[in-house]
Structure formats: structure tokens, C-alpha cells
């Protein structure tokens, strides 16, 4: 951020300042929506703009969300920089066709000939007794649309910087402003112009034991939960996502690679919510030691106006804290959880070697002998899962025959055999997630070395010898 004086503003004051500064900077910027003129918006986000910039650039629209979005698309295609307001996110779906069907696709569907640099701001979120049509969170519907960017600031400084970035962005941006943050959240905001880049999350609180991914009002509830847990010696990292589409995978995965425990918090409903995508992102990257947790609104059609019921449904610092306590109580992989994704020199290994009588053509024979050896030492045919070590009745051999025929990685045990191209003797690596690997060296005069390596957390050193003895017997009997 530039060297400017900061002073304390609320989120809604920061939004107002961003709009005023951008309208003063660029006369193509205009504001349109319901009640945005003389009233200054129902949340006062556009207060003072009508008086300063006039009715040509601060436009009260009919109560018709479809055309608010539609003319915004047209203005943007024509070269203006329109900033439309949908009064409540609950009403935005009448604008969805223009946002998802049109704005998000215009650049792509014309091979870059046209663009749609528009901003649509809307107030979302519960906690102020608004009932089912003034409380919803809608991010999952819109973060699902390629071509659209979705931001959700939590702090006054980000509310200003992200809105400025959205207005200057060459593509359509949906800005989700949590209505409870408008006045409840205050913080330092630089006076001058600045941009918070779209697509960058922020570490709101550094920690080592678990990562919370949150945004909007839930960011503040998560920070409060982390403060309570800190008193119990639990050190939680809280990431403020800030941009929901495209996700900042780097910041998210960097944090998870450190903490290896994930908790996602959102007010949107659980199923198919943003949490599902974030958990999938972490699972695919293989960065979790324990199953993740999601704290979200349950799958109920609406948020009730009754304050007891609303408070019971929405996530808060207490429910987030409970979820985090459960999460950090789950044992990590090194005590029997998931194995790391790549070879880890930190994993203790044991190995042994034996000489066997073997014909030159022996692949089928070796696979059968491996299966026989597994029956003698079943812990060599196991894989690591979140729940701990899983033994398998079926033997699925990952056959590694060299560079042109590598192992698939989907088996329960690995057999390495490079044939005449292989060296006489080497200790194989245990494939991540498996517990044992066996390697056959090159055959000389009907004899070869068989070397076995195991993950010492799952297989005892003495059992490696038993495993190799069983393999030798089976291979020589089967000749």
C-alpha cells in the first residue's frame, strides 16, 4: 500500500470512498441501482455521490434487477465503467442470466473482440434478523461461473482496495459485501488511491496447528475463535480468502502444507458450497494429515427471522471453535494417518536382500510369488488412509518395468524389475501410501538378487526377512 495517512473507517465508509475516488478519477465510472441516488442506497454505500456527481452518473433504476444487470452489460460493452448495485444479494438471481450467461462469456465467445468491464456490488449475509429474503449468501452460484470474478472483502481496507481493483478490472467482477461488516467492522484505511489485487488471499492470523479459510463476517468470527483457542495452546492460522474466484491456490496450499489441517467456514449452505471446492483442492494436493471440517449453514431453504433460530443456524465463534478443537484432536498421519504425497526421507525404512534362482523370463512367476509372500506377511500389502493403516485382501501389484512402463501408483504393493537393463542390486523406494516394494535385479546364470524395502511404521524389520524368504520359496518352487 502507498505511503498515505490511514484513519479508521467502517466497511461501508470504505466502499463509499472507493466509489467517490474512482468516479473522480475516471468519468466513465457511473453508479446505478435501486435507491442509490438521493437516498444514498439502503445501506448508504452511495451516500453523497448523487449530490457530487449528479443524476447522469448516479442513476436510480426501476425495481427490476434483470434490466439493472442488462444495461450494465451494455454500458460496459460500449466502453463505460458501470458499477451496479443489487440492493440485497437475495434479489440477484433475476440478474443471473446477464451475469453468468452474458457478462462472464462475452470475452470468450467473441475470441477477445469484446469485453465486459462491469462491477456488480451486492449486500449479502445474515445475522441481522432479515429473514429468508434479506440474509442469504449466494457466492457458490457465482463462483461456479468461469469468466466471472468474485470478491468478498472482510475489512474496510480490503473493501476499498478490492472495489477499486474491480472497477479497473477488464473483466466482470461481482463484489459481495457482507452487510453486517458495513458498520460492525472498523479498521485503518489509507486515504489515497490504492488497489488490493484480485486473486490474492491474506494471512489474517499466522498459526501452526490448523488453517481456517474464511471470508466476510465469518473471517471475524474465525479470528475470535482462534483467540480463544490460543489460550488453550492451540495455534490456528486464519486465511482471509478475499477473492472467491479465482481462488488463491498458492496462499491456501502454502498454509495447508504447513498446518496440514483444514477448517472451512462459510455462511452459505453446506452442500456444493465453497467449502466443498476448498476441501477438494486440499485433498487433490495431498496436503492434509487428517480429514477436513466444514462449518456452514445447514442445508435449509432459508434463514429464519426468529433470532433464536437464526443464531442457532449461522456459524459463529463458538461453533467454529468447537470444530477446530475436534480438528486438532484428530491424530496426524505420522501416528497412523495419511502418508505424504511424495517420497519423504523422514519416513523410517527397513530393507533386506536375498539371492534367488530365477529364469530370464520371470514376470508372471515373480508376481505370483509376491502374492504368496504377501499371504505370509499381510502388513506388506497395506496402504495408509486418513483412518489409519488399511490391510487389503486383494493384492494389486504396481508393476514398474522401467521408464516406458512405470507403475500406475494405484496398487497395494510395488514390484520393480528393469530386466537386463537393471543393475544387479539396489534398494527400491516404498511408493507413497504403500508399505512395501520389492525389486529384482538382472539375472546372471539363472540367479538374481531380490531386495525388499518397507515402511518401518507398518512393517517390522524382522518381517522383511520373513517376507523375502516366503518370496524365495514361492519363486523357486514355481519354476
Amino acid at each position, binding site marked *: 500500500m502507498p505511503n498515505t495517512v490511514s484513519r479508521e473507517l467502517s466497511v461501508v465508509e470504505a466502499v463509499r470512498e472507493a466509489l467517490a475516488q474512482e468516479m473522480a478519477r475516471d468519468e466513465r465510472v457511473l453508479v446505478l441501482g435501486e435507491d442509490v441516488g438521493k437516498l444514498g442506497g439502503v445501506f448508504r454505500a452511495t451516500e453523497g455521490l448523487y449530490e457530487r456527481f449528479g443524476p447522469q452518473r448516479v442513476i436510480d433504476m426501476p425495481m427490476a434487477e434483470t434490466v439493472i444487470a442488462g444495461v450494465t452489460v451494455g454500458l460496459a460493452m460500449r466502453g463505460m465503467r458501470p458499477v451496479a448495485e443489487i440492493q440485497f444479494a437475495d434479489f440477484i438471481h433475476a440478474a443471473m442470466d446477464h451475469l453468468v450467461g*452474458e457478462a462472464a462469456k462475452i470475452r470468450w465467445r467473441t*475470441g477477445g473482440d469484446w469485453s465486459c468491464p462491469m462491477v456488480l456490488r451486492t449486500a449479502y449475509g445474515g445475522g441481522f434478523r432479515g429473514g429468508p429474503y434479506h440474509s442469504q449468501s449466494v457466492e457458490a452460484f457465482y463462483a461456479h461461473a468461469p469468466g466471472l470474478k468474485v470478491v468478498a472483502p472482510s475489512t474496510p481496507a480490503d473493501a476499498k482496495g478490492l472495489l477499486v481493483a474491480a472497477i479497473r478490472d477488464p473483466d466482470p467482477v461481482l463484489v459481495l459485501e457482507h452487510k453486517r461488516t458495513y458498520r460492525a467492522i472498523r479498521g485503518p484505511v489509507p486515504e489515497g488511491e490504492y488497489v488490493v489485487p484480485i486473486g490474492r488471499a491474506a494471512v489474517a492470523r499466522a498459526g501452526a496447528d490448523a488453517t481456517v479459510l474464511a471470508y466476510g463476517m465469518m473471517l471475524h468470527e474465525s479470528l475470535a475463535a482462534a483467540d480463544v483457542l490460543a489460550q488453550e495452546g492451540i495455534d490456528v492460522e486464519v486465511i482471509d480468502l478475499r477473492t472467491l474466484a479465482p481462488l488463491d491456490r498458492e496462499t491456501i496450499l502454502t498454509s495447508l502444507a504447513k498446518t496440514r489441517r483444514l477448517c472451512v467456514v462459510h455462511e452459505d449452505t453446506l452442500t456444493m458450497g465453497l467449502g466443498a471446492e476448498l476441501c477438494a483442492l486440499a485433498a487433490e494436493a495431498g496436503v492434509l494429515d487428517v480429514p477436513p471440517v466444514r462449518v456452514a449453514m445447514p442445508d435449509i431453504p432459508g434463514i429464519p427471522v426468529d433470532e433464536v433460530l437464526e443464531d442457532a443456524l449461522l456459524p459463529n465463534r463458538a461453533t467454529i471453535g468447537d470444530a477446530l478443537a475436534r480438528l486438532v484432536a484428530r491424530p496426524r498421519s505420522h501416528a497412523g494417518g495419511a502418508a505424504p504425497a511424495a517420497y519423504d526421507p523422514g519416513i523410517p525404512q527397513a530393507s533386506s536382500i536375498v539371492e534367488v534362482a530365477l529364469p530370464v523370463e520371470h514376470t508372471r512367476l515373480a508376481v505370483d510369488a509376491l502374492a504368496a509372500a504377501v499371504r505370509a506377511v499381510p502388513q506388506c500389502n497395506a496402504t495408509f488412509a486418513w483412518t489409519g493403516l488399511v490391510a487389503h485382501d486383494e493384492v494389486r501389484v504396481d508393476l514398474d518395468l522401467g521408464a516406458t512402463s512405470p507403475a500406475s501408483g494405484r496398487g497395494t504393493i510395488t514390484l520393480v524389475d528393469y530386466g537386463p537393463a537393471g543393475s544387479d542390486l539396489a534398494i527400491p523406494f516404498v511408493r507413497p501410501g504403500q508399505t512395501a516394494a520389492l525389486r529384482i535385479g538382472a539375472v546372471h546364470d539363472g540367479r538374481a538378487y531380490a531386495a525388499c524395502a518397507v515402511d518401518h511404521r507398518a512393517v517390522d524389520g524382522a518381517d522383511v526377512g520373513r517376507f523375502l524368504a516366503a518370496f524365495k520359496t514361492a519363486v523357486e518352487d514355481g519354476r
Partner: protein
Amino acid sequence: MTQAERERAYGALSLARALDERMWRLARAGRAHFAVPCSGHEAIGVGYALAMRPGVDWLSPHYRDLAALLVLGMEPRDVMLCFFSRPADPNARGRQPYAHFGSRELHVLSQQGPQPNHCSHGVGCAWGSKLLGDGSVSVIAFGDGGAQKGEVHESMNVAAIHRLPCVFVVHRNGWTQSVKRSDQYATEMLVARAAGYGMPGIAVDGMDVEAMYAAATQAVERARAGDGPTLIDAACVRFMPNTSNDDDSRYRDRAEVDAVRVKGDPLVRARALVGADFAARVDAESAAQADDAAEWAEAQPLGDPATVADHAYA
């Protein structure tokens, strides 16, 4: 219309018809994915496009407005690139089916599938013209089926409130694919709706190119003068099925359509304005241009899979 304007109008009518017939045959032969015929609708587009200033005024066309694009300067080869979904197509770069028109150069807004979402885009474009003060006018055309959507109501309302420089043109052919007029709206015509928004309405025979040109000229001049929008209700007959995927024998009597074609065909009527000899010469040129464009465009390469994700974002 001056005689020169009539001859120009006839040229566009003739070329649109020739391209239309080529595309229909090629689509039916399986050589392209999709044809959207404009036969019967051509005079509407020719009439309003001749009232526009090419490259200055803006157009959000109906998908049956091929003739208008030709008047504004789209080349037959570009039309056929769109029809064959080739990446060189200036309308949609091979990413949208035929008739999803668009051209920055010709001031034709990129068009979409869901009808008629381009109405509000056209209104936004007209709003931009007003704010920029450049004196340009936007023409927004759509079908009478599309006119039943809230999109059109909301768009006309906003345009009227702010006296935006635009002209709404509804192609009233009485069919929404297979659904007849009386199942789509309860009145015979749509022109009366204009009064409900506080804008003038003009009902016109959309198969009479001179009448259409006169109505459009009046509406465009009004818009340019800052007096706001006009609705033109242009009656026409859709001579062909809805698209190459439609079979209109399942819902209407072809004989009724063919009977209209004898006397009502806009091309036949315009021939009387320019003379048979002139028309025959132009028709021969149109046929040659359509053949050349189709042959050339079909020979152009299809897209490179490596580029399919390009332009999702800037």
C-alpha cells in the same frame, strides 16, 4: 426512397436471400451445424439498416437480421465463416453457432443464445451514447416471441424513462418456433404496447422495404434528436422452418405460407421498384457471391484445440 436507394435495398435483399438458400441447403446436407433462415424477414433489416449511419450507429440485431448486417457492411465470406463455425469468423470466432452476430468494426453488439437478452444490452449501449454525447443511435431488434419476456418490458421502460437514443424493432411473424401467436399474446399486434411505456409506436408492413425504411427513418431521427425511443411493430411471414433443426409441417400448413410467398415476398415486391432486368442482374451476382463465399469459407481451417481456453479472462 430515391432510385439509388431502392437499388441498394434490392441488392441487400437479393444477397440475403441467396446466402439464406445456400445455408439452408448446406445445413440440410450435413455440411454445417445450424442454419437460421431469414427469408420473409429481409425487408425489415434492410429498411432499418439503411436508416442507420454505418460505423456510427449501433445495432443489437434479431437473429433473422442477416440482411441488416449486409447493409452495414458484413461481407458474404464473413457470413459463411460464421455459418461454418470457423475461427476466422468475425462474429463469434467459431465459438457460437450461426446467427449469433457481432462485430466491433460494424458496431454490432455480440449476440447471445437466450432471447432476447440483447435488448437491455442495446439500451445500455444507447445510454453510453447519451452519456458520451456522440449523437449515435442504437437499433434493437427481436422477435414477437422474445417480446413476451420481461427483459423486453424492463428494457423499453428504462429506455423511455431516460429518453435514450434507441429504436425497438419487433419482427412480428406470428410464430414462436412452433407456438402460434394466440398462445403467445392476446392482441393481434404489439404496437399498442408503446403507449404503455410513453413512447410512440409505428405499425408497418415489414415485407415492404420502402414502408420499413420510412418508419425506421422517422424513429432514428427522433432518437437522434434526443426525443427518445420508438417501437416499430413490423409484420412479416417466416417462409421457412424456425431453424434447420425444426420441422414446421408438424404445426402449420405449408400451403398458407406458400400462398403468401406468391404476392407478399419482400423480394418479389421490391423487384417492382427496380425493374425485372436490374433484378435479374443483381440476383445472378448474388448467387455467384453466395457460391464463392460458401466454397471459400468451407475450405478455411477449423479451430486449434490449444486455443479453446483463450480469452476466458483478459
